[in-house]
């Protein structure tokens, strides 16, 4: 645990003039299995996207392993929400997993033997090896999630950023994912998940950030996942906060 895998400094993100994240200072130490929790609309997914340089920042900066994201892209694997793509796309499970190798293999080169081997290993680790040739529209929700996970594993990254990996999956998939995340952590990798289900947080994760537009608290689960912090995060302050922030941003634009 040498340093921080991910650091957000004074981060503000706004869609049009509606602020989504406001003055967030957050550092996720390396080698952690970390969860981001917070109510709907708290900006959890946006925080992930900000880390991956996918949304414009209104202010602040993000460092990944101490560097700008574009310098360390290959060390980061992203698992988007399952619903974000059209699963009727003409591709097999193996095709999707191989997409995880494009970045390493070069965009125009055919994936080589090594890429295929890594893709196959990734499928084995999520228990999907026998589905490699299956058309992706014929997968269950849990199998789709495991396919996305395999694509990220095929990247062989140091930081895994996942948007609700447990959303709408079956019990078998959930167990597979948990075991896999622990294995990654035990090998020194860092995992950061947006997590919806609060009950499983203490069991699955060892580090947590509570977010509701602003950072409420962050740290090891044992100290941070407290009633008081949860109340601060999920209590009814968000509406007032949002109005105040909107007014403030409007004022800045008007100047």
């Amino acid at each position, binding site marked *: 645990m040498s340093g921080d895998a991910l650091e957000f400094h004074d981060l503000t993100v706004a869609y049009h003039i509606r602020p989504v994240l406001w003055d967030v200072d957050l550092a996720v130490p390396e080698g952690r299995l970390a969860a981001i929790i917070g109510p709907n609309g708290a900006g959890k997914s946006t925080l992930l*996207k900000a880390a*991956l*340089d*996918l949304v414009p920042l209104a202010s602040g900066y993000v460092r990944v392993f101490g560097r700008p994201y*574009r310098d360390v*892209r290959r060390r*980061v694997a*992203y698992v*988007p929400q399952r619903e*974000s*793509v*059209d699963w009727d*796309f*003409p*591709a*097999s499970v193996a*095709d*999707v997993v191989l*997409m995880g190798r*494009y*970045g390493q293999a070069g*965009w*125009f080169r055919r994936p080589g033997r090594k890429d295929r081997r890594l893709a196959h290993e990734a499928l084995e680790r999520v228990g999907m090896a026998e589905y490699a040739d299956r*058309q992706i*529209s014929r997968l269950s929700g849990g199998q789709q999630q495991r396919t996305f996970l395999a*694509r990220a594993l095929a990247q062989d990254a140091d930081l895994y950023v996942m948007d609700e990996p447990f959303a709408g999956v079956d019990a078998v998939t959930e167990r597979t994912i948990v075991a896999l995340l622990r294995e990654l952590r035990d090998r020194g990798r860092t995992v950061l998940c947006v997590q919806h289900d609060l009950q499983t947080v203490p069991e699955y994760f060892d580090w947590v950030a509570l977010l509701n537009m602003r950072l409420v608290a962050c740290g090891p689960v044992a100290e941070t996942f407290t009633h008081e912090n949860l109340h601060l995060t999920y209590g009814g302050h968000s509406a007032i906060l949002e109005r105040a922030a909107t007014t403030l941003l409007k004022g800045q634009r008007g100047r």
Partner: protein
Amino acid sequence: MFDATLITVMAGASLLGLVSGALGCFAVLKRQSLLGDALAHAALPGVCLAYLSGGVIGVDPKHPLLLLGGALATAWVGTLLILSITRTTRIRQDAALGVVLSVFFGAGIVLLTFLQHGGAGAGQAGLDKFLFGQAASLVPRDVFLMAVLGALVLLTLAIFFRPFQLIVFDPVYASSQGIPVRRFEILLTTLIVVAVVVGLQTVGVVLMAAMVVTPAAAARQWTDRLLTMVVLAAVIGALAGGTGAFVSALARRVPTGPLVVLSATALLGLSLLLAPRRGLAWAAVRRLRNRRRVRVENLLKDLWRLGERDGRYAAPRAVSDVLAVRAAPRTAIDQARGAGLVAVTGPLVQLTSAGLERAARVVRNHRIWELYLARRLDIAADHVHRDAEDMEHALDDEVLEAIDRALGRPTVDPHGRPIPRGVPA
């Protein structure tokens, strides 16, 4: 009959089908099918303006390079307009498409009418072929230009195939991997613009969109792989183009565009009907087979139940009695006999050993499922029978084994009847 002119015309029409078929796959998968329509219409004023400017600057106003250049220019402007309207205003893409399509097409028609009536002193400019297409007007010079543009488009597509695949399937992930998604989207749209413009003289602006959408939709029926789909769509497009041009050359007064589109649609119809797995014909065959199987299994079950009364499971029964149980047609018996499950002697029918085994399994499945419904889902015992009747044919062995285990290998169903565990001696 295949003179040099016809070969030129068919080559040109096949070429346009090839290119628009391949590119169309990406438009369809990106759910931008109608973008092709809008930008084809947007090309019309460009053609007219190019013709006009040709007269002004003193080059051959009908030179294909000039006309295609003009078409490309306004189609491009139209596309950019659609994208920027969608991005900067609250107008959605479909509305933006509609607005841009009609404005550009309207302007194109005004210009065209002006030119056709000798406004520029050009007399019959012959530009009306760009409306509905006239393959017969293709000369080798045109086809050569189409081939060069088409080759450029396909080559670019081949080089960037992987990034294109990724930005269409999952643009957000692509972006996280450092692909310049916006730039690739613009490149892809540009290729689609070129593919559409290549076909304008042959198919016309009004129907060109069909050549983008139809071959891709047809190809999708046959395959679940993107590369195969692109190749197939190109082949289907080329076939439709060649056929349409051939027929239009025979029937001289019919414009080529509608005929090419009709050929493509016929191929789509065939694909929808015949493609394995997705095809409607196969679905009908599967349904028929399934209905037959259910009928045979029900017959076996009825024979088994008759056997339960007197303990003689394989005893011959009167055909009429067996059929009377659920008013089954006589063909059920013929089908069961064809499968070796029953033997028929005169008016009597009895289970063979294979039939006995199968009957035991069907009855077991039915009763286990009934018990499961009654115990685990709290459905009243007198309601479970019909539900089980439908499910017993559909459940696979794996699921049933799991249910059986969960219920602790029960011996009787909710009605107190025994659950068969093997074939009686």
